[in-house]
């Protein structure tokens, strides 16, 4: 009995000790939008940081979709309950950059905390996307992605296609899809996630067409959309025709909730989606082999397609926290930027390696040679010389604009509008939102 008491006492004592240790640590809250495989990996990253030192504890909190995370953070900021770090998707960049009083710019934070910080170490397209006009990086690039094409090699083979040859142009996509559907190898040729991002924004960048005036919004708030050009209308018109013929299946608005399942269930033979779908695709493609390829393009519009543009998210630091917390944030950001941490995250998830060092580390490790297709995204985003049209897009109220584009695409598929009418109406409604944003941020 005495022995038992001793054990209990010891346990209580150790519990007390451990809580007192925990109390000495500063907690840093991190709101994020990574579910599924990505969420598990993200929590592992935070846990590894917590284990690597004893002064700070980073607590990741899953807040739902990207849009929900941003909304929660804004509501929390208004109530003075904001987290120190929030993950905001690229669409929210315009909103965050305009919110000067709410954001603690990363370059400034790192300087204030005396942490080493070298923006030159980041990949050029990433730096370009997230810098202010003076060239300062305002948020920490964490998970950047770009859309690529995934295809089902087994279905290709069953349809009599060479499984090692991916479609290069949209003419290929159409021909391959037709052969796949006609041969009965699959019931649909291709589907796409993020219709707005992949088939409109990236489509414009790839074909060197402006998405909006003022360098796609980089040069000022007085920008207008121009994505209702001839080429975009032709592409949307094709998608409508292919949808009617059963070659293409629409997977829904925003991220396209059905896109992954349609591909995993082998209903659709090809999927165009973020490079970060890689982890999910590999996990779910149990019964078939997956091929990876760059996005297709129209050969008669552009012979050498431009680089694709960035999606994904960065980590923003919000104002109104204590100095100790910011010290923890800075330490955590330094940890996140380390080549081995970055390379591990990139290789597991399919997000781009954010720093040159992480990319080089992957090459040294022989990762790209061992995993064919894993460097498709980085090759696509870094190819050629970026033009003003392929640098990216930066617009205010862009979450709403994307909803508008989704709605107009649905109207097109439902047969209410032609491709040109749908795009014209999207541009008109989008411009009204831009004017609203300009007025709200004028003061």
């Amino acid at each position, binding site marked *: 009995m005495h022995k038992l008491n001793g054990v209990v006492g010891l346990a209580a004592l150790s519990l007390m000790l451990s809580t007192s240790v925990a109390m000495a640590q500063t907690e840093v809250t991190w709101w994020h939008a990574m579910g599924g495989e990505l969420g598990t990996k993200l929590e592992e990253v935070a846990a590894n940081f917590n284990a690597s030192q004893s002064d700070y504890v980073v607590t990741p909190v899953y807040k739902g979709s990207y849009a929900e995370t941003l*909304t929660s953070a804004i509501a929390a*900021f*208004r109530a003075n309950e904001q987290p120190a770090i929030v993950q905001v998707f690229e669409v929210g960049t315009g909103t965050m950059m305009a919110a000067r009083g709410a954001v603690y710019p990363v370059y400034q934070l790192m300087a204030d905390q005396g942490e080493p910080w070298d923006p030159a170490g980041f990949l050029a397209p990433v730096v370009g996307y997230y810098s202010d006009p003076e060239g300062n990086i305002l948020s920490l690039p964490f998970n950047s992605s770009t859309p690529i094409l995934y295809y089902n090699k087994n279905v290709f083979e069953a349809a009599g296609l060479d499984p090692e040859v991916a479609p290069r142009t949209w003419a290929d996509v159409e021909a391959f899809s037709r052969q796949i559907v006609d041969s009965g190898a699959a019931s649909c040729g291709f589907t796409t996630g993020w219709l707005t991002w992949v088939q409109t924004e990236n489509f414009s960048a790839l074909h060197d067409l402006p998405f909006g005036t003022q360098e796609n919004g980089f040069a000022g708030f007085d920008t207008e959309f121009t994505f209702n050009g001839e080429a975009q209308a032709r592409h949307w018109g094709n998608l409508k025709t292919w949808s009617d013929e059963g070659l293409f299946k629409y997977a829904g608005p925003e991220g396209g909730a059905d896109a992954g399942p349609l591909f995993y269930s082998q209903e659709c033979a090809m999927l165009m989606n973020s490079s970060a779908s890689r982890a999910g695709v590999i996990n779910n493609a149990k019964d078939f082999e997956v091929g990876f390829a760059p996005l297709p393009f129209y050969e008669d519009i552009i012979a050498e397609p431009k680089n694709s543009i960035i999606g994904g998210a960065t980590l923003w630091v919000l104002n109104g926290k204590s100095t100790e917390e910011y010290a923890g944030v800075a330490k955590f950001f330094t940890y996140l930027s380390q080549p081995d941490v970055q390379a591990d995250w990139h290789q597991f998830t399919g997000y781009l390696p954010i720093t040159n060092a992480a990319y080089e580390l992957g090459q040294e490790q022989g990762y790209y040679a061992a995993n064919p297709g894993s460097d498709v995204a980085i090759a696509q985003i870094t190819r050629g010389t970026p033009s003003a049209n392929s640098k990216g897009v930066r617009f205010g109220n862009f979450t*709403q604009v994307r909803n508008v584009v989704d709605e107009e695409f649905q109207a097109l598929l439902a047969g209410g509008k032609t491709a040109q009418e749908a795009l014209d109406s999207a541009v008109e409604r989008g411009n009204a939102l831009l004017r609203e944003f300009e007025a709200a941020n004028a003061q």
Partner: protein
Amino acid sequence: METKRTIFPNKALPYLLVAPQLVITLIFFIWPTWQAVQSSFLREDPFGLASTFVGLLHYQRLFQDPLYLDSIGRTAVFAVAVTVLSMGMGLVLAVAVNRLVRSANVYSTLLLWPYAVAPVVAGILWWFMFNSSSGILPYMLSFAGVNWNHKLNGTQAMILIILAASWKQVSYNFLFFLAGLQSVPQSLTEAAAIDGAGPFKRFFTIVLPLLSPTTFFLFIVNVNYTMFDTFGTIDATTQGGPSQATNILVYKVYSDGFIGLNLGSSSAQSVVLMLFVVALTFVQFRYVERRVQY
């Protein structure tokens, strides 16, 4: 008049007794309403860092916006359809159960179950049943030559949310109609039967008029339900889509304010919505109630 009046010597006590209710009303109703009214006159950035007074601009814009006017029309269709459908079904079921002697309790219990299901859960269930690629109903409809895809077809999406929203409300209407039916005096219907009135005549000339207070009450409750409480159902099934086909007023308040971060316009919309319901309730009590026999 020789009425006896109770005099409370303590002046503070009555106020103290109503205080909890007043506090709740102030904190949960008056204060948020005041805030909504206030921010409907402001243009603010999402973080609330800067705001300018813009007067009635948001209201003016609303009534020039074809999408908003559309949304009013859709809300009307939705509200009328849900109210008629759920009250009609509730009444039919109540009449049927009222005729039963022994098994009435069992049926009432079973019919009440849907009301206990949370709107979001109900929405998800309907979403599964109507899912165009894996749902059971589109599969069955395909034999009838109907291509069900509510993700693209706005009319089908509207039918889906009407069904989902009505299904939940049938239980509630059923319960009140049943209670109403049980309070109709047996002697009246028996007397009519002796005079030779058939079951339909008895129902329409005796039972239905006597049910009118219940019907009136349910009418108000149902309209309020469709205007405000259907948010969860819509969020779980169509999210206002496709192409805003199911974007009824209450959902538009949410999507413009919380997804679009346009708080000024969203506040203006919620004020307009509130005025709608106030006006509707006023009209109901002022004019419809006069024709109700209590």
